[in-house]
């Protein structure tokens, strides 16, 4: 069904493309939000990607690869939004100078908070790999196909991203242990 829609849309049928949009926009939005961590930027990225998809669809040779192809457009739009954000519409993150002392029950929330901050510090290229692998559940080879980059690059990006995220959590845990009077 989707294959037929893709072929029709590729041939210029706007109604078919509208049906494809309606069927895929939720997935695209969820992906964009997780890369950008910002609802408004995700909104813009998806809109850019969808309009780009309409323009570039004639270049899609294999209709069965539509989902992966669209995901790549979304990811590329996220890169552009992230870079635009970096210069023009950046968010201010005030980092606390002294981490608060947290009871154990709050440590999970602290981990999430630290994860959020650490994730936002990652380059968008690393975020995309993390999201496609850990959120979409794609194997690394499929991530590579989706992004159009070598599998080795995917592995190194994932490795670097994971290392930084782990380091952030571990640093947070050490700080919490010290402030609780426990050995780190």
């Amino acid at each position, binding site marked *: 069904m989707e294959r037929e829609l893709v072929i029709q849309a590729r041939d210029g049928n706007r109604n078919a493309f509208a049906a494809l949009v309606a069927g895929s926009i939720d997935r695209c939005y*969820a992906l964009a939000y*997780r890369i950008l961590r910002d609802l408004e930027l995700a*909104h813009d990225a998806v809109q850019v990607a969808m*309009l780009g998809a309409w323009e570039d669809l004639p270049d899609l040779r294999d209709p069965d690869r539509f989902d992966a192809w669209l995901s790549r457009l979304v990811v590329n739009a996220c890169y552009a939004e992230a870079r635009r954000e970096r210069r023009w519409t*950046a*968010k201010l993150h005030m980092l606390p100078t002294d981490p608060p002392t947290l009871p154990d029950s709050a440590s999970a929330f602290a981990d999430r908070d630290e994860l959020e901050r650490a994730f936002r510090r990652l380059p968008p290229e690393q975020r995309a790999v993390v999201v496609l692998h850990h959120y979409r559940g794609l194997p690394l080879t499929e991530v590579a196909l989706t992004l159009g980059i070598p599998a080795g690059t995917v592995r190194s990006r994932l490795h670097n991203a994971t290392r930084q*995220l*782990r380091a952030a959590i571990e640093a947070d*845990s050490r700080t919490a242990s010290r402030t609780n009077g426990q050995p*780190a």
Partner: protein
Amino acid sequence: MTRPPQFDQMLGDWLGEGPEVAPRELLEAVLVTIPIRRRRRRLLAVGRRYRMLSMPVRLATGIAAVVVFGVVGVSILRFGGSSSIGGASPTPAPAASGSPSAPSSIPTASPSPTSRISGTIQIADGDLLKAGVKYTLTSFTPAFTFAGQDGWTLKGSDPSSAAFWVGSDIGQGLFMVERPAQVLEVGGAVAPVPSDLVAWLQARSDLVLAKPTKVTVGGFAGQLLDGTVRPGAQVNGSNALNIACFAGPECTPDTSFGLGFAADNHFQLVVVSVRGQTLLVDMTSNAAAWNAVHPHLAAFLAGFAFPLPG
């Protein structure tokens, strides 16, 4: 050392939080825009789209509707109703041999006939430039002409700003002309544009600037400041320093549309007064790319002219 338990599980759970359904307005905005999108112009209105996307969706949708009606109206007037909107026929891109009557490449950026300047090519957002071609940009006020540079694209323009990029990353090279509406003081307070913009820039503690040098931009005298962001300057969460805004409902260090630098940028700012209007020309790239990019930026600046419309 305390090691986070089941890190991958925690990461997966955390990523799983968040919206799974797109807002209805997003779907509507895309569906409204598709009918007026033509194919075969991949760079069409990239910059303008960014601006539009920053508006409320209803406003953007309204503008799209106005564009639809406007295009229909123009088509009826020009072609007696025989033209199809968004059809398969491609719109010609700017060419070196183009005449002053060459059509604008997108309807939304059509300049007024009185502002066309003889011997140049009209340019619209998204157009890729060619070296050796002289262009006119009329969506900026005042309109200007300039010499093209291979690989550069007009990414966005409106009456108060025009931005040209090279490559896909803004850090690879940016040439921007703008008419600032407000400035951001050190610390982020919004203030009116000072009468002596050069002195104001020099007084900023978060910039490292060389002494200003005199330059001529399109026949108008200006001052050029070469600089970088001072190490340790208070930048925002994206490692950027915004110092001026040219438009938009808000002007903050975080959400401004205007002049700003990444901490690793090298830049040159030109302050020039053109017929009573203070303009800022920003030439920026990553510091590492500066030597390679600067000749192109300088060529842009040298090729400028601000002819009177008509």
